[in-house]
């Protein structure tokens, strides 16, 4: 692609960033996410993993917060603080990976159905509507029940139940772009499907997909925790599996709030951050939304 095109895109991105910067909520969210991602990547170096092992845990069962264990201990005597920090890794990884799967499938279905039209579109939209209506949590849980339980099946179960909204959005946007005269001009000059989709449709659809993506990540993290709470997760430590174990071990009746609060608060903060960023991005892409929501 020629240099002017990229110069124009860089300018548009710079302008978008300037507008994004004025949104305090979005900025706070982005900073929090960046910090947490950086920490999660470095966690194996910063955290002594012996403390995560049930066998080598030194604390008592369900001890309240103390000088040694700032957020108390879980039912096997491990530090809740340590578990919460470590749990960020799986929760974020599942959130991002499931979103990637969901957004790729959704974008593909949306673009293909809008671009080719006809019976392909009819079939794809019928399938999309079907998945849109199905209770996603129940379907994901059923998938997990029949598949071997691991982090990767969780990612798959969430990914293939959450793509329809993206598909709908992308389809509408693609239809809008393809009705513009410059697409007709491109076709008249001999541009094939790959050229039109790659050079014209995707560049104008992707910013919207990106804004939508940040909202999907939040939903995926909540979905992961809900599935884990229903017992549908791998053996890894995540915020959801912590809450499941808290519930199963009777932490609620024991009044062990220190076991229940940290993972939940972590989920709320992360999801809230993604939502704030997503809303800010939507405002950047569509200034008409400003102040209206």
């Amino acid at each position, binding site marked *: 692609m020629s240099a002017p095109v990229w110069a124009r895109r860089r300018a548009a991105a710079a302008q978008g960033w300037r507008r994004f910067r004025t949104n305090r909520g979005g900025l706070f969210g982005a900073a929090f996410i960046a910090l947490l991602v950086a920490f999660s990547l470095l966690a194996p170096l910063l955290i002594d993993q012996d403390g995560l092992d049930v066998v080598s845990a030194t604390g008592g069962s369900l001890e309240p917060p103390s000088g040694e264990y700032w957020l108390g201990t879980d039912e096997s005597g491990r530090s809740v603080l340590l578990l919460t920090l470590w749990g960020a890794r799986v929760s974020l990884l599942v959130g991002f990976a499931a979103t990637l799967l969901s957004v790729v499938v959704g974008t593909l279905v949306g673009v293909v159905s809008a671009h080719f039209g006809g019976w392909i579109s009819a079939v794809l939209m*019928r399938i999309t*509507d*079907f998945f*849109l*209506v*199905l*209770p*996603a*949590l*129940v*379907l*994901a*849980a*059923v*998938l*997990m*029940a*029949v*598949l*071997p339980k691991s982090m990767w099946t969780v990612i798959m179960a*969430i990914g293939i*139940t*959450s793509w329809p*909204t993206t598909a*709908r959005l992308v389809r*509408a946007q693609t239809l809008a772009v393809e009705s513009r005269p410059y697409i007709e001009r491109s076709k008249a000059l001999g541009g094939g499907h790959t050229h039109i989709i790659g050079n014209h449709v995707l560049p104008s659809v992707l910013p919207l997909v990106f804004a939508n993506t940040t*909202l*999907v990540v*939040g*939903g*995926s993290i*909540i*979905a992961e*925790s*809900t599935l884990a*709470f*229903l*017992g*549908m997760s791998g053996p890894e430590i995540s915020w*959801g599996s912590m*809450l499941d174990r*808290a*519930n199963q071990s009777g932490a*609620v*009746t024991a*009044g062990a*709030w220190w076991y*229940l609060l940290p993972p*939940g608060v972590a*989920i*709320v*903060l992360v*999801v*809230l951050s993604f*939502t*704030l960023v997503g809303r800010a991005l939507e405002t950047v892409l569509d200034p008409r939304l400003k*102040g209206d*929501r």
Partner: protein
Amino acid sequence: MTTGPTDQHAADPDERRSGTSTVRYVAGKVGGALVSLVFVVALGFFLFRMIPGDPLVTMTRERPTGPEQLAHLRERLGLDQPVWQQFLDYVGGLLQGDFGTSYMYRRPVGAMIAERVWPTLLLVGTATALAVVLGLWLGVRAAWRRGGLFDRTQTGITLALWSMPQFWLGLLLLIATQGVFPSRGMTSVDPPNGFVMQALDVGWHLTLPCLTLLLVIYAQYMLVMRSSLLEEMGADYLRTARAKGLRDDLVRRRHAVPNALLPTMTLIFLQFGMVVSGTVTVEAVFSWPGLGLLTYEALRGPDLPVLQGVFVILAGSVIVMNLVADLLYRVVDPRVRAS
């Protein structure tokens, strides 16, 4: 799971406004719903045939079972038949209300589902009724003083509730009230005498699950009511109403709100999918003996025939509810029919 607040509404109006006649519209919607129902039934069957390994191994994991017993079980559950024969038997059974037999309880799944329906309807019905009232009231207040302190506080609370897993909210309520309300079941172990006392006992148990579900679903009503009222507020007929000297709250009550109510009516049905996921987690937290708890127990088992039955019933009812919403929208809003 991730459906945003206004997605469903944003997607639908173009379809609704297309110039097809009522008959074609209804036929299209009913046909679409039927196709979806067929998909659900097929998915319900083939999903459970994807399981790696032998279901009998899962079933008999904790009990030593001889080869003769295994063969007998296999025959009784129809597992010795070819897959297409099993599928036909399954569909035929569904049509007669036969959902198979539970692995764990050795009872017909249909009967297990039937006895769990009423507690769920009680929970969902109460929570939805309260959510409609609360959501509409808050939505009207927020829209009428748009951008004010009340509006901004409400938006903040909604965002926070959105970012929260539903089951965690339930657990928080449990731990915060520590024993003030019962933490499990629908009735006391030793239920009191007399209808009134028993009703009060159920209500007592209902409080926390209902409150959790209410907090999960009211925001949608508030948001839709708010944006729908905001749309009406620029309308000329409201200026006319004010110009003839009507007081502000009368303008709101008699003119603006009735028109803005239309989109929220269909929302009751559109939201059903979200309510279903809500009941699974909320009933699991509070051991409320409904369909959600049955799903939870079947997942934990895993009790695959029960799970299969619950999946078909839940997904099927969401499809039917969406159809009702689509049809109702055309009945209640004459403007849609005319255009």
